[in-house]
């Protein structure tokens, strides 16, 4: 059976934006998900995790099961090595150089064995306006922001509320990409990596039977908003689950969901009209991808259409309902 393409997410942003902090935070919170990280420098990663062993030239395994490649041999070889290790990573994160164009690096996501899964650009709220006006790098920084599917906004705690509001409003003018606040680089794993696949969840989650779909592994972090979805607790994102009992028009779903401002991630299934197979729906930022759902052995075919949606906090249920006509929210908001 052909192996599923490994999602490849790119993390970009200018020097000292906080890319490394974000990546380290993801490694700590991966919670059993085997991540493959491609970085410029091994030394930056792994503040908390220990390097367990070297798997080969330029690839190391970290405590927690994540693996890390550096770019000493180049991007192609790094990705080839990630494909060849056993078991393969469930998700690959590529850190882009501070002077690089994240959109260009995202092209590597088309390498066979992978699929592109979004561009996250890390933006330091306390410095971004100065950078966007910098004599040397203004055009580069604005370009980077423009290439984002998701904006991860760090260092907001160094500003007062009014300043923060002013910067995020300005940022909204530079890019329609949703902004997730992550003052210390801590961002829910699902924002950057999306939801774990049902096969990986290992909970035997069954869809369409009326039980709550658990589409994320989470870390089992206690209660709080989003825990029912397996999404790690955070006041900077909002998770909700939606179902539709009626057939779904897939192209409407793609365009309306993709246009939902503040959408960070979405994942689930949609039953189209007629005899069509259920469709796997995955979204990052404004990109919605609907692909034929591949059955897993032993897993039942989804009956209902169900979608877990992750948005920025200010997005109201009503707004999501407008983007998903005919769908109802079915989880219990906390």
């Amino acid at each position: 059976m052909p192996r599923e393409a490994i999602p490849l997410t790119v993390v970009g942003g200018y020097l000292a934006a906080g890319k490394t902090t974000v990546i380290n935070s993801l490694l700590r919170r991966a919670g059993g998900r085997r991540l493959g990280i491609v970085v410029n420098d091994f030394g930056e990663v792994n503040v908390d995790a220990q390097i367990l062993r070297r798997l080969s030239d330029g690839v190391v395994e970290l405590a927690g099961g994540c693996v890390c490649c550096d770019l000493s041999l180049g991007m192609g070889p790094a990705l080839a090595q990630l494909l060849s290790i056993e078991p393969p990573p469930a998700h690959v994160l590529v850190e882009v150089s501070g002077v690089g164009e994240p959109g260009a690096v995202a092209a590597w996501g088309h390498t066979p064995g992978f699929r592109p899964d979004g561009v996250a650009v890390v933006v330091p709220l306390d410095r971004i306006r100065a950078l966007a006006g910098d004599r040397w790098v203004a055009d580069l920084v604005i370009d980077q922001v423009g290439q984002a599917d998701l904006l991860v906004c760090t260092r907001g705690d160094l500003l007062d509320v009014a300043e923060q509001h002013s910067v995020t409003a300005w940022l909204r003018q530079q890019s329609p990409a949703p902004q997730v606040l992550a003052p210390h680089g801590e961002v829910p794993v699902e924002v950057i990596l999306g939801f774990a696949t049902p096969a990986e969840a290992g909970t035997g989650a069954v869809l369409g039977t009326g039980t709550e779909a658990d589409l994320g592994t989470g870390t089992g972090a206690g209660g709080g908003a989003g825990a029912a979805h397996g999404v790690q607790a955070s006041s900077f994102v909002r998770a909700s689950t939606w179902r539709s009992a009626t057939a779904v028009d897939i192209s409407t779903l793609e365009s309306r969901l993709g246009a939902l401002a503040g959408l960070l991630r979405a994942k689930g299934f949609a039953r189209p009209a007629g005899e069509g197979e259920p469709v796997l729906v995955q979204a990052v930022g404004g990109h919605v991808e609907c692909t034929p759902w591949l059955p897993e052995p032993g897993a039942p075919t989804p009956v209902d259409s169900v979608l877990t949606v992750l948005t920025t906090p200010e997005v109201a249920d009503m707004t999501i309902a407008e983007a998903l006509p005919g769908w109802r929210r079915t989880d219990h908001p906390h």
Partner: protein
Amino acid sequence: MPGTVIYPARLVRTLDRGRPTATAVAVRGDRVLAVGALDELGAYGDHTIDDRFAEAVIVPGFVEAHAHSYAGALWQSPYVGYFPRTGPDGRFWEGCHSIDALVEQLVEAERALPDDAAPLTAWGFDPIYLGSTPLGAAELDRISRTRPIFVLHASNHLASVNSAVIVNDGLAGKTQIPGVVTDPAGRPTGELREFAAMFQASPVLDLLAARGTAAAFDAFAALAHRCGCTTVADLGGTPLSDPAVLDALAHATARADFPVRLSMFHLAAQGPTPIAEEVALVAGLEGCSTTKLRFGHVKLIIDGSIQGFTARLQPPGYLGERPNGMWITAPERLREAFGAFHEAGHLVHAHCNGDEATELFLEIVEQALARSPRWDHRHTATHSQLSTAAQYRRMATLGVGANIFANHTYYWGDQHRDVTVGPDRAARMNAAATALANGVTISLHSDEPVTPIGPLASMTHAVERTTASGALLGPAEAITAAQALEAVTLGSAYLLKMDHEIGSIEAGKLADLAVLDDDPLAVPAARIAHIAVRATVLGGQVLPVGPGAPR
């Protein structure tokens, strides 16, 4: 005590202001004993007269201050560029003026390969000169359908492969990779653009593996020797932290017949190594320098290339509303790296193609000098293609040199005039006259393999200011032949901090000479490039150039 040998010549141009011409050079050991007339030199005592150069013109051995030793690796493969080149073995490659000519060239090369399965790699292809026919599998299959064929373009950012590569490396299954060009039916054409696509073709690894080897250094040295160089600077691309590379370098240069002195620059701030470690590496290497192998200088890359639209330009920027180019190294890292090497006493040459890159470099130099004043640093903007008059004035004040890419006027002058920056800025590109008028020390370079190494040719380009199509471009920036000769001898030596040893023929300096068939200051500018090099002398050792020449 080594014996004295006197070499009479038709003419000796010394580059010594006190004695600009002479008719004989006396050499003792590896040094010049004296320069003058034969009877004067006879007064220095016992000597032998070696009159093999009696009809020739002797000038200081040329100093190429910006080339890359990986050219020696490329030259292990056939050359398929548009312009003629001479290879390390003296073979003249007339250049491929059509796809047919390229195919013919490679059919010949393919036949000569000993092993049926080994890939055929080639380099230097530049479609810009061949009109719009792309080079792909359809054309390369005419050479062989079974042997993998990989042609690296001159830009280093594109490649062309044949069907054997498409099949062996499964390119038909990789067409979603941007850069794997497909035909309307979705099949790979054999054109690969940018690294993500190029990497999919396995022969690229063969091309890379040849770098940093003894064979590559020998080929590079042979290339330089043939055009009269006695000293060449490798401006990075060969990793000096690799013990195997250092070993190969040490062994090659230790041989008595290794024909040039190498100044190996460390390319800094490209990888994750902390700057302090890089500084320590360079300091350690400097201590290992020998007379033919010099370490201690540092290269920084600031921006890309003008013809690739990746150089950083000040307003008005590129023609056609294009976005500005790329910072190869972030400004903060440049500041940090430059500062560290400057404070540690090293010499830095920074690649600046666009004028915005030059501007940043000058700001960084000025700030570093304000923090840590240093006499006679000689930091240099290399390429310096779009540096403005104002920037040259600043360079003079700051003590910064300019290694100018005069060859570009010939090879890309038409493109700069018509496509990249327009006639007025193209005319002031590679502004050697402005630099000299403002008191900036200059050199002229080839950036081999980007353009062919050859200081005599660089002189022609700087004096003639003529493009490949024959158009005059910016004649006001032309310099005299005398100024050009100084640039490729003493000027280069000065910018490499070797001017006390080489670059002119003076008593006490190393006996590094170039022996020419003609006087570059007495022929029309266009002829300078065609003056034959009979031999070089390196530290007193005669190294003939010619088909029968030693390696």
